[in-house]
């Protein structure tokens, strides 16, 4: 006869993990570090000895801020003005290209063949043209035909003070509004195609089962998209969107080709008037780096927050 089965329940305890092993440098790490320092050092030495160049950073500063000759107030000069335009292009560009991306991305995943075709045509057309070529084509064939017809400048001139103030916050100098809007549209239409692909991938990354659950609860198609698919898709889209929006900031320098007066455009002006080509280039590169770096940190933060939001 077998004895009755008894289970002895032991005291359940948990304790903290053992201390982590301290980091230490392996020989491979040392070799890598040495190589990196050698490369950087060599380039520095070449530039210093071979490139005979007298660095002079001081001639840049007057182009950041200037004093008004009449009132004596400090005002933004070329570089800061350009930077502000770049910032406006970046922020508004993200919004407009985001909207274009959502619309086209939804069209690409639609059940209607015609919408899918329109969406694909847009993405294929733009994605397969080099950005520089697109900027010129957009400027000469689309913008310069449509903008005069809109009569934007006249409308702005006749607008009330509140609208004028709002617009000046959004686009800066109202005299240059057409110039700015062309740059913004060019950038957004172009980037919208890439955002559309990210949105499409995001929508398709949400499991079919989620949509079925929404359908079976009687939610309308729009509600399923808005409350079930998009919140989950957005989370999956964040890393790709971060890259694309950083790309957008950098691409904003391309519209200087058609005289949109943003940072790169102003930088060329400053290069011409100061004859300090390298200093201005490096200085502007630093500004772009700071902008893009801050944005990528912002997206990292967003990703962390999204990851904490559930699970």
């Amino acid at each position, binding site marked *: 006869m077998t004895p009755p089965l008894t289970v002895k329940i032991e005291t359940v305890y948990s304790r903290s993990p053992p201390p982590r092993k301290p980091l230490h440098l392996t020989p491979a790490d040392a070799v890598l570090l040495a190589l990196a320092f050698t490369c950087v050092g060599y380039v520095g030495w070449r530039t210093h000895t071979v490139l005979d160049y007298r660095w002079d950073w001081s001639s840049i500063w007057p182009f950041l801020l200037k004093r008004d000759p009449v009132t004596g107030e400090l005002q933004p000069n070329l570089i800061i003005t350009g930077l502000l335009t770049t910032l406006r292009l970046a922020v508004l560009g993200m919004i407009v290209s985001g909207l274009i991306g959502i619309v086209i991305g939804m069209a690409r995943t639609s059940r209607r063949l015609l919408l899918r075709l329109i969406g694909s045509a847009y993405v294929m057309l733009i994605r397969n043209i080099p950005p520089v070529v697109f900027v010129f084509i957009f400027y000469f064939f689309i913008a310069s035909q449509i903008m005069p017809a809109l009569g934007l400048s006249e409308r702005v001139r006749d607008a009330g003070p509140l609208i004028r103030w709002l617009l000046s916050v959004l686009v800066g100098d109202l005299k240059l509004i057409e110039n700015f809007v062309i740059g913004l549209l060019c950038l957004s239409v172009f980037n919208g195609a890439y955002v559309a692909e990210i949105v499409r991938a995001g929508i398709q990354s949400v499991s079919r089962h989620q949509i079925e659950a929404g359908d*079976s*609860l009687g939610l309308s198609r729009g509600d399923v998209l808005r409350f079930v698919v998009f919140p989950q898709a957005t989370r999956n889209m964040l890393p790709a969107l971060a890259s694309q929006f950083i790309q957008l900031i950098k691409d904003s320098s391309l519209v200087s080709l058609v005289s949109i007066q943003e940072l790169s455009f102003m930088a060329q002006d400053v290069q011409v008037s100061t004859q300090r080509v390298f200093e201005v280039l490096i200085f502007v590169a630093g500004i772009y780096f700071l902008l893009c770096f801050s944005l990528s940190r912002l997206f990292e933060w967003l990703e962390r927050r999204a990851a904490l939001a559930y*699970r």
Partner: protein
Amino acid sequence: MSDQRQPSVASPVQTTAPFIEMRGVNKWFGQFHALKDIDLDIARGAKFVICGPSGSGKSTLIRCLNRLEEHDEGRIVVDGTVLNEDTHHIAAVRREVGMVFQQFNLFPHLTVLENCVLAQVRARKTPRRDAEERAMSYLERVRIPEQASKFPGQLSGGQQQRVAIARSLCMEPKVMLFDEPTSALDPEMIKEVLDVMGDLATSGMTMICVTHEMGFARKVADTMVFMDRGRIVEAAPPATFFSQPRSDRTRLFLSQILSH
């Protein structure tokens, strides 16, 4: 054995017109003939359990009932509404039909409470306060009101499935479809889900369950349906179904799943 090609199925508690009616329903996935000439009548309050080997069309059949799958031929009527391309008809049917999935399919970005509230507010236009109240009452019914503010990912599989049941019930459906509701669960959690389903059956809900839980089927079902290769092979009350299956195919299936 049985040379009857397609048994006509009627639930024992049949009163007037059947609540759900399937006539000559056929469905293909590409070249694959998934449902073959399905005829089925389900009365209000009936408890159907559908079983059969995998790939026999059980899930496809119940997914046709709320048009998660479109049938290619035949006629499906749910509570007087004919299921066809008409989106109004589909919406009307989906309001009456609740569904519980094998993988729970809770919305991971919403709390348990929000999972239960969303469709009430959006599809039924229930005021939020009433929706929350109803959600809490159903969460109590599935015995997890204390989890209301958690996210689905923080719950066990059994808890998630009970939330999924509560979420469906919040829409006050007239019939509940269960698509292998316990197949993705650890053995320890199957019972808690089956208990909730048992309670639901007692309350008079019309239920159509695809499941391999034969103990549950014996206790709850009033009609057992056995499917094989897209056909309904046999349909009978559980007493006769388990003791005197008419077809050899059913007998073989039962011997395989009941042998251990």
